[in-house]
Each structure stands twice: as C-alpha cells, then as structure tokens.
C-alpha cells in the first residue's frame, strides 16, 4: 500500500497573551500511515491527542515539523504550509473531521445537513436525498426526526448525525476526535460498522477513542502518548 500521511517531528505550543505564558502541547510526534490503514491515538486527557488531529486539519496553526500528505488533487504536499485555499479544497473533497460537537446552520433540518454534505461534493439533489436517507437510517436516527432541527436532539442523536454527515462524503482521510464519547453500546456498534465499511472502501483513518475495547481489532497501529511512539498491531 502506498503511503498517505507522514507526520514528522511535530511540535505545537500555545501562547496565551493575557497570562504572558506559552503552553507546550505536543512535542516530537512521529508516525506514518498507508492508504486504508487505521491508527488509534491513546493517552490521558490533556496529553495532546486532539491537538494532533487539529493540526492535520489545520484548525491549529502549525509550528514545527512536517505533515506530508499525498493528495489526489495536489500530489505530495506538506499540510503545515499548504495555502488556505488548498486546505478549504481538501476539507471539502479529501479530509473529513468528526468531533463530539455538532455545529450547524440554525434552522437546518437533520436531513438537509447530511444532504448538504453530499451536494457540496458536486452531487445532484436526487442522489443527495438518497444517500442522506441511507445514512440516517444506518445510524438509527428516528425518521420522525429527519425533518426536525438538531438543536432539540439528545447528545447521542447529535453525535450520530455528525458522523453521518462526515461519512457520506467518503473522505480519503477521516479524523475522528472521540466521536463515540457519549454513545450507548448499540450506537457504538453502528459507528464501528460504518467505520469498518469505510475502511474496506479504502478510507484512511486516525481516531481518538477513550474506549479501548472499541478500537480492538479495528486499528492497524496505535500511537501511545505515554510511550511517545507508535506501536504496530493490536492494542495490549
């Protein structure tokens, strides 16, 4: 398999002006991923797991190191110094990000949120409707909720909607930032199924999960913050 992503000597710190202080978030992170692989990131709260994902997605400005990504559109590139316009393109077509939080336009229905994700990729409204319904059904979102606004949804419903709208885009690289944090076991199984299917279809994934059981058998490798390095194979 060809390499998709390589993270080299990644550093990040945050300058807090009103405290006149710099906080070091992550230091010297190295790992690489082949196409279709799944790497899990484990570590204590505050160890910098999300920081890595957010740097790859460029929500956090890069500082030091390299994030080499093999883009379909742009070829081999360093995401640390990619232009904003390139990042906007990649976010639309190649790299997805799912967090625990749903942030959407007010008064947009659950159905429209998932449909818009598909339409953004240049697909027809008809196709978007079909894909959206399949996804909502897969994640067991009650059809009565489809035309409702997510602001009234429960935490788990919002989360499932969030994952659905990211997964319908079938990104090449999907970043999962604790997407199962507040889900019950049945919902977790649904998420796991969806991830397995994406993986089979060739999506490369980086995931942060607190639930180690959830990751068992799913990950090809694990980055352990405690040891500061990447471990191949199953989680112990």
């Amino acid at each position, binding site marked *: 398999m060809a390499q998709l992503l390589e993270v080299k000597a990644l550093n990040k710190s945050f300058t*807090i*002006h009103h405290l006149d202080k710099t906080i070091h978030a992550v230091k010297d992170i190295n790992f690489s991923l082949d196409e279709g692989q799944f790497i899990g990131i484990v570590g204590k709260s505050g160890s910098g797991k999300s920081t890595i994902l*957010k740097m790859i997605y460029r*929500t956090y400005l890069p500082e030091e190191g390299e994030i080499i990504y093999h883009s379909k559109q742009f070829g081999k590139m360093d995401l640390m110094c990619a232009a*904003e*316009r390139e990042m906007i393109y990649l976010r639309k077509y190649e790299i997805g990000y799912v967090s625990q939080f749903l942030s959407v*336009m*007010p*008064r947009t229905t659950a159905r429209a949120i998932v449909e818009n994700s598909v*339409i953004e990729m240049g697909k027809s409204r008809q196709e978007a409707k079909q894909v959206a319904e399949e996804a909502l059904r897969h994640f067991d979102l009650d059809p009565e909720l489809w035309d409702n606004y997510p602001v009234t949804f429960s935490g788990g419903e919002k989360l499932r909607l969030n994952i659905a709208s990211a997964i319908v885009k079938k990104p090449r690289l999907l970043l999962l930032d604790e997407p199962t944090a507040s889900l019950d076991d049945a919902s977790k199984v649904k998420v796991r199924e969806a991830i397995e299917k994406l993986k089979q279809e060739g999506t490369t994934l980086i995931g942060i999960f607190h639930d180690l059981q959830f990751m068992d058998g799913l990950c090809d490798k694990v980055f352990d913050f405690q040891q500061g390095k990447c471990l191949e194979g199953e989680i112990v």
Partner: protein
Amino acid sequence: MHDKPILHVVNLKKQYGPGCAVCSHNHEVALEKNRCPECGTVFACNDLSFDVYPGEILGVVGESGSGKSTMMKCLYFDEEVSSGEAYISCYEEGETNVFQESSQKLRHIRNTILGMVYQNPVLGLKMDFSSVGNIAEKMIAAGDRNVNRMENRSKVLLEHVHIPIARMKDEPKKFSGGMQQRVQIAKALSNHPPILLLDEVTTGLDLSVQASVLDLIKTIQQELGISMIVVSHDLAVIRMLADRTMVMLDGRIIEQGLTDQILENPQHAYTQQLVYSLI
C-alpha cells in the same frame, strides 16, 4: 479549483486628515490607535491587502471603529480611497486598478459587478419608493429600460428573499427591519453581481429573523456562486458563513486565516480577547 481571486486588494488606505511628517513616514510607531497625535489625522483603513476568491465568503470581524465599514464603503466607491489598488477579475481581465477609474466607470462597476447591503437600510433603500421601484432603480442604473422585465425580475427576487408578492408595491418604510434587510438583499442581487458586500446585515435583528437572513445568504452562495465579503462583529455569524476570516483592529488587518483556526487558535492578543468574549 479557482486559483485566481475575483477581487484582489493591495494596500487600501483611507485617511481623514492631511497627514504630517510624523504620520506619513513611520506611522506604525507614531500612531495612537489609528490617530496621529501630531496632526489629528485618522487612518481608518491602513494598508489593507487581501483576496476574495470565486464563490467564497470572506468574513471580517473587529470592534466598532476598527475600519470595517469604511473598508466596505471604499470597495463600493461610496468613499474615495486615499491610496491603494483593487483589481476585479471580471473587469478588464483584472488588469486595471479600479480605484483609479473615472466616476462614470465606477458607477458602471457598482451597478453591474457589485452589490451592497448596508447595516442601516436607510442607506441602501429609498424608503418612500415601492419595493419593486427600489429594485428597478438599480436595474435602470445598469441600463435596463424594459418595465415588464424589471417587474418580473423584481418578483422573482422578492420571492427568493421571502417577501410576499402582495406587498411588493409597499414602501420599505412600512416593513420591519428584517424585511427591509431582505429587500436590500433583493436589490443588491438584481443585476446578478459576482461580488456581494454585506455590512452587519444581521445586527439588530431578532434571532429568528437573523436565522432566516443567514439561511438566505448561504443559499445565495450555494445556488448562485456569488463571492461575498461579510462584515460582522458577531463571531457566531462569521463561524456559520465564512470559510476564511480576517480580524481588524485600529484600521489594520492583524490576523487572517481559516475561520475555525481564527476561533480556536487565535494568534493575536486582541483576537484572543475577542474569542474569550464569545458567549
């Protein structure tokens, strides 16, 4: 992917006052906020350089008095710039600095390439004209003389912004603030402008009307592919609408980047304060 910006602005400067030896040369050191302590000249916009790409929404945030509205007025030629350049890709192939064009040509650009929605509807609408008349005015300014065509276009636009057709002959002064804002948007869209300038369009509207205006703006972007500059001091509005955002303070751009990066990893002390203030 479009790599060429539709609007390319270089060193836009707008000063009120003559300037003096102190502020004309090294004003970064000399200015107090945006004002020269020697001669009292105010630099409302100071060396603004940025690009807007086809189909994108560029957000502009900053406190009151940071120069956001002055910048918009300069871009719509309401105010004459003190110096600087602007190039529009669909005007003379983007090779002419539009700030140096004659007033006749500026009117042409304003009426065919740009649309503007002001924070205060009084600036953008004739309150005593009918709503249709307001839209027709912009189309007449662009050279249209066909009454039927103008009326039909007005109807389509008013429907698009959810103003009941039964009220299209009403004057905007009889409308609510949200409706006036939507008539302004309809008017601004009448000549299919590729660039739309929106200055605090949701400020002062109640949450429900605000949501419908935001929805309208997003729909216009998706369906018509219009590029927009959206000025707002409401970070939530910017987060909803803009892919990229720039932050202004004392007439300068102090930071620009992807909107989520500006909100989650702000670099400048002022931007950090702004984000901490978000409710």
